[in-house]
């Protein structure tokens, strides 16, 4: 049955890829402008990354990338239509042209980038598999987990990463298999396992929902690479550039200290890079086919990367994620955007 299923899926995907390649002649940028709104593939709901709030407005750091692109293209961050996608349909929805971009905690991997006909334009969140334990265990490093029982979702890459990690460090563990995230939460809080492992962002989001979040600690070791970022269809480099530099503008904005609050003052700054970014020195928008104030619109309406991070998943939110890897390169992280010139 799995064989048939995978055969079917690969058939669908191959078909999708070939047709998407065959059919990609219209420029996405023109299409988006003509339509008057950006179609953005979002999650069906992941706290802090992309979910509708009580008023039905989409929020999250993935959603902010969509808003940034809309701000760049239309000068109005609200001109986005969100298409909720599940992990099963997200790539085909993009290939069929139903959405213009996908911003939905999707890991950038070789096969997705090359084989599926996608183009990942950057990373807006560096994730990785982590471990969470109860503080009362007194464990401060994943190296001290020898012999622990671990709650793990079956059939995931996390399961394999876990086995690799323990084997590589000569430790043993007892696995407590669970099916879903919520089942894992229940098992872990009921004490059926000592350790809960999944993507670190997922651990933080889970912890935020526990009755006493401060009683649990996410260990510093990250045992896999999960770079999450926005993707577009392969073969339309102009559009990929727009999405890539919309994300970069948010990161460079943080680097240069431009926030949504001070963006107007910064227009009179003496730093030439700031002036280039905000369109005071003309010419950079035209290269992308955008107006010169495109990055100004992003920073004034959406804010810089740090603002987006702090607002949706930062330490002051229930999700409470530290910047860590996602800090700027000069603050000890690996977030790095090419220079704006």
């Amino acid at each position, binding site marked *: 049955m799995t064989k048939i299923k995978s055969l079917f899926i690969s058939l669908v995907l191959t078909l999708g890829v070939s047709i998407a390649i065959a059919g990609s002649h219209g420029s996405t940028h023109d299409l988006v402008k003509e339509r008057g709104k950006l179609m953005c593939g979002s999650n069906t709901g992941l706290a802090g990354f992309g979910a509708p709030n009580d008023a039905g407005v989409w929020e999250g750091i993935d959603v902010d990338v969509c808003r940034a692109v809309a701000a760049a293209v239309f000068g109005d961050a609200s001109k986005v239509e969100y298409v909720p996608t599940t992990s099963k349909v997200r790539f085909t929805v993009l290939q069929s*042209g139903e959405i213009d971009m996908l911003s939905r905690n999707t890991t950038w991997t070789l096969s997705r980038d090359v084989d599926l006909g996608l183009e990942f334009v950057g990373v807006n969140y560096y994730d990785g598999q982590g471990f969470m334990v109860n503080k009362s265990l007194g464990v401060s490093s994943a190296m001290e987990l020898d012999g622990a029982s671990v709650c793990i979702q079956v059939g995931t890459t996390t399961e394999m990463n876990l086995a690799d990690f323990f084997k590589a460090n000569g430790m043993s563990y007892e696995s407590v298999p669970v099916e879903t995230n919520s089942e894992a939460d229940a098992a872990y809080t009921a004490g059926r396992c000592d350790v809960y492992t999944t993507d670190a962002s997922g651990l933080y989001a889970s912890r935020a929902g526990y009755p006493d979040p401060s009683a649990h600690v996410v260990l510093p070791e990250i045992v896999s690479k999960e770079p999450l970022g926005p993707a577009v269809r392969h073969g339309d480099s102009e559009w990929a550039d727009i999405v890539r530099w919309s994300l970069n503008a948010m990161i460079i904005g943080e680097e240069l200290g431009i926030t949504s609050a001070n963006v107007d003052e910064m227009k009179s700054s003496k730093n030439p890079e700031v002036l280039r970014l905000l369109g005071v020195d003309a010419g950079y928008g035209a290269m992308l086919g955008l107006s010169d104030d495109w990055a100004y619109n992003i920073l004034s309406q959406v804010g810089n990367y740090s603002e987006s991070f702090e607002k949706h998943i930062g330490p002051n939110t229930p999700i409470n994620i530290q910047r860590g890897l996602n800090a700027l390169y000069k603050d000890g992280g690996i977030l790095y955007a090419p220079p704006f010139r």
Partner: protein
Amino acid sequence: MSSTTIEIISRSKYYNWLVKNLFSSWVNTILTVIALIFVYQVGSFFLNWAIFDADFRYNFQGELIIDRGFCSKNIMPGEYGACWAIIFARWNQFMYGLYPIEEAWRVNLIYALLPLAIIGILFDKIPFRRYFIYFTFIFPFLAYFMLYGGPGLSVVGTNKWGGLLVTLFLGVTGIGLAFPLSILLALGRRSKMPIIKSLCVVFIEFIRGVPLITLLFTANVMLPLFLPDGVNPDNLLRALVAVTLFQSAYMAEAIRGGLQAIPRGQVEAAQSLGLSYWQTTRKIVLPQALKIAIPPIVNTCIGLFKDTSLVLIIGLFDLLGIGRAALADMTWTKLYYEVYVFISLVFFIFCFGMSRYSLYLEKKLKTDNS
């Protein structure tokens, strides 16, 4: 007979029933007591959780609950039950999805008119039934215009529809469209014309051989790929096509069961009176066959109504999908029980309604003396 005698008789009637059914032997007595204790325990636990110890809009300190941190059970763990504030806060989304709230009156109007549209086909002894039937046929166009928009009304794309609206839309429209289709399929499958017959057999067997989720997936993912660039049929429409085809195949088999139960003599008698095929079918065969097929038809309808929640997998926010989205909002995350209990209750109301209606119909149409 004086009233006291009646009382005694009726009291002894209950007493006899109790003895006969619950306390006939000591084993049964013990089982009854255990069952009663069990029911009491579970029932009181649930009622305490869901009603007596629960928060509705305000917590025990009288504050309006605006996020899960305000729930009494999160302020004093272990002391309080459900926190229904999430349902109140998200009520509009549960009812209309992401439909613009200033336009929600359009959905409300359609919700209000829906019973009027179906009452004519559900019951035959109502006054002015003919006008209700007319309305039934106008209603789909009216509903489309009101919900989607058009001249005079702003357009609300179906990607904004959600919650109960999508569930009802798929359920009602799917069942409504599938019913005539399934009758044709059932008749076609019993037809003597080989091409029609084989087409119907292939269609029914193919659709029945594939899970609904695969059909939805195919409709959602493959359809746009085969169509020319820029032609993207609506997501909801694609789901509706899949749901309708699926339902018609299943219902066709239920109806075929009814057709096969009609004695051959009925058809022969009609033919000997000179009735044509369609006259025979319409006046003699179908009324009897459909009557027999009521329980399995309703069965598939209930099944379909619940299956609509599978559209979550193709990114449509039906009632279940909107509930999961609510749980993904960090304002409300982890109130699983409240959301799922609420959704089950809504599904239960509709499915139980359908089931009771089928019982009523069976009783009404019962003509034999057995």
